[in-house]
């Protein structure tokens, strides 16, 4: 890429983005360890490899724009501002968790951050995002709804209903497809008649673009443009970020449907070292500073684990709370 990083964002923001990507990676790898130890149970879907999407996107959105995601959403929540220790406590099922231990890994939520949830029914978040965009427009709040989903979700009726509806009612919805090439073990070419997902919006006249989801600055720029377009036109836009998860679908998946060569190819495109390298090349940071950032992230995650371990379990009486107002 020709453009220098400094021409896009100030040093402080660039370093913050690197820090966020490193924190997410450390957090996810720690989750894997805690799962192996039996501290985290149930389903656990890790984001390692996809960090550039959450970090680049979040930086490009306004703080009060709604964000909705699927079940691989720890990083989305943390980048938006959720405390790692409260996310970890949620994964441990503890009372101090983001959702009091009632949601777990797949259902993080924080309305104060406009982080409107992780949803675990594939494509379930589409109509909810459209509804939030309706409310935002109705109340003239100037915010948009950013709806993240995987490549597996685009063959759900909800995807098509949501695109049609957002376009029809002229609602500010930014659809962001994190195309990591696999719906569990089914490669996108084996589930989508048209595997170029961004092209599938043409039936609704919803503009779209594809971006390198392993390049945090490319994601930032694409989402920045798209989000402003959505805000300005009060209409929908779709960004397809081409990315890759380094781990299996969940901790239960060894990922044997992918070749070692393919994994190696994508690991060579790992957004963390590549972005770090650019920061050094463009003299925004030195290796010592990047090492310090990593060290700090490790400490934050260790503290999160300690907090989760030491936190109390929910009281039994809590089981009946929160069903009704």
């Amino acid at each position: 890429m020709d453009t220098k990083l400094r021409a896009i964002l100030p040093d402080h923001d660039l370093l913050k983005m690197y820090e966020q990507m490193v924190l997410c990676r450390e957090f996810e790898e720690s989750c894997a360890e805690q799962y192996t130890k039996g501290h985290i149970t149930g389903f656990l879907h890790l984001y390692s490899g996809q960090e550039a999407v959450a970090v680049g996107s979040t930086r490009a959105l306004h703080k009060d724009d709604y964000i909705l995601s699927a079940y691989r959403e720890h990083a989305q929540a943390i980048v938006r501002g959720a405390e790692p220790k409260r996310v970890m406590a949620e994964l441990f099922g503890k009372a101090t968790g983001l959702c009091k231990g009632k949601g777990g890994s797949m259902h993080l939520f924080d309305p104060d951050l406009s982080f409107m949830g992780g949803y675990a029914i594939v494509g379930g978040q589409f109509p909810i995002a459209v509804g939030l965009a309706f409310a935002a427009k109705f109340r003239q709040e100037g915010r948009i709804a950013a709806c993240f989903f995987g490549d597996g979700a685009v063959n759900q009726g909800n995807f098509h209903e949501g695109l049609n509806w957002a376009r029809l009612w002229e609602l500010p919805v930014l659809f962001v497809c994190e195309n990591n090439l696999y719906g569990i073990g089914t490669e996108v070419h084996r589930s989508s008649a048209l595997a170029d997902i961004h092209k599938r919006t043409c039936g609704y006249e919803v503009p779209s673009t594809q971006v390198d989801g392993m390049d945090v600055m490319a994601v930032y720029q694409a989402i920045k443009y798209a989000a402003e377009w959505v805000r300005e036109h009060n209409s929908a836009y779709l960004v397809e970020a081409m990315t890759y998860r380094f781990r299996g679908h969940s901790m239960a998946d060894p990922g044997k449907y992918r070749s070692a060569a393919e994994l190696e190819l994508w690991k060579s495109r790992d957004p963390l070292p590549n972005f770090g390298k650019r920061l050094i090349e463009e003299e925004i940071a030195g290796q010592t500073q990047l090492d310090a950032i990593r060290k700090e992230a490790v400490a934050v995650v260790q503290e999160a684990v300690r907090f989760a371990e030491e936190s109390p379990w929910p009281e039994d009486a809590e089981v009946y709370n929160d069903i009704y107002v």
Partner: protein
Amino acid sequence: MPEITYRDALNLALKEEMRRDPSVVTWGEDVAFYEGSFKVTRGLLAEFGEGRVKDTPISENTIVGVAIGAAMGGLRPVAELMTVNFALLAMDQIINHMTKIRYMFGGQVNLPMVIRAPGGGGSQLAAQHSQSLETFFMHAPGMYVAVPATPADAKGLLKSAIRDNNPVMFLEHELLYNSKGEVSDDPELLVPFGKCEIKRPGKDVTIVAYSRMTILALAAAEELAKENIACEVVDLRTLAPLDTETFVQSVKKTGRAVVVEECWRTCGLGAEIATRIYDHCFDSLLSPVQRVSGLDVPMPYSRKLEKLCIPQVEDIIGAVKEVLSEKY
């Protein structure tokens, strides 16, 4: 008090609440320009405009999901499903999302929303348009379920539903839309959720019913009165919350109970009501609880066959006589 139809009572509730609260919005298939397939939304577009009264694509799951999002975003949406049969296309948003969101997110968000859905059988609409799915909704914790029988309750319950901060499944009966009754024009008169009403007092038998079955139960009670049998008709009004206390007290008094349900018998809500009666009234019961239910068949079209599948007044009369003749 003026006498108006069940349809107009619902219409009045919508108008009053939309006048009262600008965050109340409504949408569904054909609700705006066509004014509703059952005309419940008549006049709303003219009064409140296209910003608040909206036609939607035929996308039921999204009709409900958009309401969920709008409720999360600070509005009070009333989504209409053209018939309850189409709620089955929206069960993902209703059950997997609407009833779960508050709980699984640790109580951090409320969903003040209503789904209105006409339903019930008896109009010869055959298997796909005649279902009584109330038990499906009652089964899932996380939503309220209203089943009004009279115009007054239709108005008062819908107003409560719109003002409530919980999601409400509001089940209207298609055969009741033209029924008439006295309805208050006091815009602050609400009917509370979770409160049965004794629609007719009596000492011999308790009939527990809801929606159109209440109307049939009242007709049966009227007939039975001619034979000096005094039936107490308890109208559930809401299936969730379920006011167990009121029908239990009634059965303790009468010692006999008939439960009338339009839905399929197997796992029907009558089984739940009967169980609660056994749990609380075992020592007061003079005979086993009788259930009058829809038949366990897909609804046939033919008028002659359809009638067999839906409880009739004579079925209720028969059950009351049975419960009076039986003894433990």
